[in-house]
Each structure stands twice: as C-alpha cells, then as structure tokens.
C-alpha cells in the first residue's frame, strides 16, 4: 500500500456518459504498486487540483489499473480532463475487497446503481472468467436514464451469454428505450438465485442499497449474505484523519466493502 503517490500515465480514456470517463492507467516507471483486488480503491491525484477516492473498475496486468470517474467536482473534473500521456498520482490500493472467495460455490447477485456498477465490474470479470466456480449469476443494474448507463457494449456482451442473467432498468426514458423503466430493488423479486446459498454484492446510492437489501430480505436472504460498498469522505485513506468514520468503522480501511449485518445498524443513525 503506497502512502505517497506513484506516477501513473494515462494510457487511454473513453467517454462512458456525459460526465463519466474511464481511464486506463499504467505505471510511469518500474515501481508497480501492489495488485488491486475487486472492490478496492485508489486515491487519484490530479496535480494542482487534489485527490479523490476512486474504485478500481478493471484490473489489468503489469500493475495497470482502470478507473471510471464521474466528474462531480473540481478534483474529479480535473481527473476526467486528463488526456493520454498525462500523468496522475496514484496512492493505493486501499480498503476491503468484494467477498469472491466466500461466493465460490454460491449463487451471486450483483445490484448496482449509477456509477456503482464501476466497483462491481471487476467482480463481473472474475465471475465470467471463472464461471464454473459459481452458481447462478444475476447482474441487476439501474441508472437515471438510458444515456446515463455505463459500459453499454460490455453489458450487451454479458447479456449475450447464456450463463448470466442481466437485468437493466432506468428511472426515466423516452419511447425509443425498449428496456425496463423502474427502480432497481424491483428487479430483485424475479432474480434467479437460492436465498439460502447466495452472496449479494451491492454498490450505488445508499438509499437504493437500503431498499434493495429489504427486497433481498423479503426473498429470505440473511444479512450475513449481503455485502455493500459504502462511500464516505475518504481523505487520507489510511484511517488517520477520521473524515470517513462511521461509528467505530473507518470506511477507508474497514470498508468500503462491508457486510450488512455489521454496518446496517450504523447506517440507520442519522448523525453518522
């Protein structure tokens, strides 16, 4: 884990939506950082602008990492403005990973909302690369509108497989959209999984995850089978500054991926 930024060069970038970009980053020198695990994040440093915590959205070889970044403020706007050849500072990997080992031999349901698909994307890659290790796999994804959906062509490839169920919904659409319109939790009652042998992983707006967790509970899924990625104000990423504290937890090092039975009581405290 690097506490000082390592220089990474932007190898490529791709626009995902009107305000979201995917950046391919490669170490600018030989000092490759420790490998990332799906669910972990890096502090991306746009020189002169500042740092922001960004989950890894794909994991390449040779220390290369991929981040999908939504421009929502000065720092993330500066990161998204980086061009191929530009250098960003990267600290990481930080935080906990998705429970892929626990998911082996189990059904897996992924519930993502908006930019929340990015931290789950490496999980999809792992599930598809080692499909035989897992039971039924469902990917449930929701966005604000069709234009706000990430990784459209990749989702189509996932849909094209016969061993994965992919269900996508949006909050609003015109009549040219031929998919679902509605909220993500509503996809859960029809999803194919055995409640007693499923591992659920969720990432998205916290309210969406609360309602999705209730829908999973209604299917009979216990809280110790539900994992979610929380977002708080990660600043130092090493558990020292306390900005991301949630009760006794530091989301930067105890999270961001946490089991629901651990974190749910804290999520119901309005002051935390």
């Amino acid at each position, binding site marked *: 884990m690097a506490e000082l930024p390592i220089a990474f060069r932007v190898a490529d970038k791709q626009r995902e939506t009107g*305000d979201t970009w995917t950046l391919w980053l490669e170490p600018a020198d030989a000092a490759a950082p420790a490998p990332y695990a799906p669910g972990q994040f890096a502090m991306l440093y746009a020189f002169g602008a500042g740092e922001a915590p960004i989950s890894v959205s794909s994991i390449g070889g040779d220390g290369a990492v991929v981040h999908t970044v*939504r421009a*929502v*403020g000065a720092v993330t706007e500066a990161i998204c403005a980086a061009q191929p050849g530009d250098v960003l500072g990267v600290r990481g990997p930080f935080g906990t990973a998705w429970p892929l080992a626990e998911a082996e031999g189990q059904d897996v349901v992924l519930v993502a*909302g*908006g930019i929340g698909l990015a931290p789950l994307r490496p999980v999809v890659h792992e599930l598809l690369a080692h499909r035989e290790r897992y039971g039924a796999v469902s990917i449930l994804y929701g*966005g*604000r509108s069709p234009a*706000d959906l990430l990784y459209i062509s990749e989702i189509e490839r996932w849909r094209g497989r016969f061993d994965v169920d992919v269900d996508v919904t949006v*909050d*609003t*659409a*015109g*009549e040219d*959209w*031929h*998919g*679902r*319109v*509605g*909220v993500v*939790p*509503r996809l859960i009652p*029809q999803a194919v999984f055995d409640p007693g042998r499923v591992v659920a992983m969720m990432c*998205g*707006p916290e*309210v*969406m995850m609360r*309602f999705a967790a209730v829908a999973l509970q209604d299917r009979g899924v216990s809280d110790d089978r539900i994992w979610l990625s929380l977002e708080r104000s990660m600043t130092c990423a090493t558990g020292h500054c306390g900005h991301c504290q949630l009760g006794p937890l530091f989301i930067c090092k105890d999270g961001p991926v946490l089991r629901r039975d651990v974190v749910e009581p804290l999520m119901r405290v309005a002051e935390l």
Partner: protein
Amino acid sequence: MRTIEELLGEVPALRPLAPEHRDTLAGCARNRVFEPGEQIMREGDPADAFYVVREGAVALETVVPARGPVVLQTLHDGDLLGWSWLVPPYRTAFDARSMGTTHAIAFDGACLRGKCEADPALGYDLLKLLSGVFVARLQDTRLRLLDLYAKPGDG
C-alpha cells in the same frame, strides 16, 4: 386449451386471493393479445378494465410537450395494469402501450365492481391485493422522486 380459471390460478400476483374469489373474477375476465405498439389504455378514456400481464411488456407513459412520450414505468410478466376502474370517476390516468407482443388477461371493470358491491368479502380480498400493488408503486415513485443518481448538489 386452458380455461380462464386455470390461467388465473397460474398468476402469482393473484395467488393471495381466496380460490372462490379467483373463480368469481374469472367470470369478468377474458384473454387478450396486444400487438407491438398497440395502445392498451389511453389517457382520459373511461377506465373500464384492468389487466394482468401474462407475458410481454407494457409501457405506462404520457406525452410531455417538446419531449414526446415519456415512459413512467414498464410492467412485465405477472404485473397488474390499471386501477382507475376502481375509483370514481373511472378515468384512465396514463397511456399504456404494448412494447412487443403482450399476452394479458383483461378484467371488465364494471363487472368486477358489481360483484364486489354484491360480495364485500370479495371486494375486501381484491382491495387488499390491489393495495399491495398501490404501496409498491408509491414506494417506487418516492424513490424516483429522490433522483438518487443526480450529481451531488443538483436539484
């Protein structure tokens, strides 16, 4: 060929109804098939029916000036469509369009209202069922009002 009673028994959304009430409903029901793009309900028309989608997809929508038709929600296998038949003045609130070929069971609203008035136990059973649908749709609408995917600070 299966009877309407048999088809109703296969619809998960109707399972909470007492079997004798499902059979009563069958007297007001018939099979319908809607072609892709066919209008099932039209905003402002008399609300004289509701539907159970057996197979297919239906878009609930309304036309917004300068935006065209906006899809408010889509309904899929097993979903119930339409409740304006139950509440005066029995006027359809939104358009409903078949997104592909849709197989549905259509219920005559006036027929059902008559049977519910004559048999309060049936009326209560049906209203409990529909209330579950109302609550779920209201919760969905409230979630969407939050515009959870908006940029922080927007709205």
